């Protein structure tokens, strides 16, 4: 019967298509701590971008790690359509990213993108960010706020620029990997990197740690230019100038251990 053959063909085509999509699963990990104001909007924006990617044969998922928030971050993220994991107590950015990586691995992700929940990253940068991984020219990609355009142009304050430069210098001295934006929160990793990189530090040191692990494991590191939005809101959150010293201390200790 030609009709049943046609059905069989459709069945096989569907099967092939589904295995095709499963070969590439992009998981966006968003660590969030007390971000009820922004996290919903960020998740929705990311999902919007991912829908575009799904047309190109990607499975995708947004994974928010609620790091012991005291506000409605969990509910807001879930309402926006993300899969939300909750830390019962606040453990720090590094811990949240580590949990996100673990969950992504278990859920079969082949590419993981991390993105800040405060809205300072533009999800439209994701396709650019994962391009080096899809071309198989890099295992870890850092989205650099300072690569192409002058830092001034994106409105990064001078004190942030100085601290950033110092952090790059220290990352290079301690771990032998030079990046123009070692503290960037927008990054992409392929599954190979995901399986090998083990995050031990709990807090803000995690940005340098991922770069350190990349160079230790001889994974390929690439940088792509991204846009960053410095709003009053995002400046209040995240790294403060004052906590850069403890971060430095922790990095030194990690090197000794």
């Amino acid at each position, binding site marked *: 019967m030609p009709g049943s053959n046609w059905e069989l063909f459709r069945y096989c085509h569907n099967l092939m298509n589904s295995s095709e999509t499963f070969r590439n699963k992009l998981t966006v990990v968003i660590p969030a701590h007390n971000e009820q104001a922004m996290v919903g909007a960020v998740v929705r924006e990311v999902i919007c971008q991912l829908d575009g990617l799904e047309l190109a044969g990607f499975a995708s998922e947004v994974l928010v790690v609620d790091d012991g928030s005291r506000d409605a971050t969990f509910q807001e993220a879930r309402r926006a359509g993300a899969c939300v994991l909750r830390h019962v107590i606040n453990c720090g950015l590094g*811990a949240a990213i580590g949990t996100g990586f673990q969950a992504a691995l278990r859920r079969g992700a082949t590419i993981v993108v991390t993105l800040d929940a405060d809205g300072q990253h533009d999800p439209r940068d994701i396709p650019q960010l994962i391009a080096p991984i899809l071309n198989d020219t890099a295992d870890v990609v850092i989205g650099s706020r300072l690569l192409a355009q002058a830092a001034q142009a994106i409105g990064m304050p001078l004190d942030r620029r100085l601290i950033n430069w110092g952090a790059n210098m220290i990352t290079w001295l301690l771990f032998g990997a030079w990046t123009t934006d070692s503290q960037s929160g927008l990054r992409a990793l392929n599954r190979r990197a995901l399986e090998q990189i083990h995050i031990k530090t709990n807090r803000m040191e995690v940005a340098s740690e991922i770069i350190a692990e990349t160079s230790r494991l001889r994974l390929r590191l690439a940088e792509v230019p991204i846009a960053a939005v410095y709003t009053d809101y995002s400046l209040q959150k995240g790294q403060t100038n004052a906590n850069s010293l403890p971060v430095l201390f922790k990095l030194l200790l990690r090197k000794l251990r």
Partner: protein
Amino acid sequence: MTPIQILGVLFLLFALSRVILRWRSHRLALSELVLWVFVFGGILTVVLVPSLSAWLARLFGIGRGADLVIYGSIVLLFYLVFRIYVQLENIEYKLTTLVREIALVQSTDSSENKPDHTDASGTAPSGDDTAGSQP
């Protein structure tokens, strides 16, 4: 014996007895027993024989016995603080592992109730169904 010596000896004997009792009830490792017996025993010896500290100080090229005690104490304190710091880091790491595991287990529980944002995995079974129901 001066009153301060008597007080010192009494306190140190008390401290030593605590250490040994904790070791006997298996709440202290052998290495820790050795460390603390060495610390408290050493202080006890110096308290009982103060001239010993002066002799030791001369041996190390330090002027007075009291100076040696202070230098030694500072070094010891730094070391102990470092040890506590390392232990604290380890505990934090273990705590993170625990919190992470709880988060992962909870997410697998709840994901069975609520479908998440994977369009591709959602369309695959439905395509399967239509193909299967036709013949």
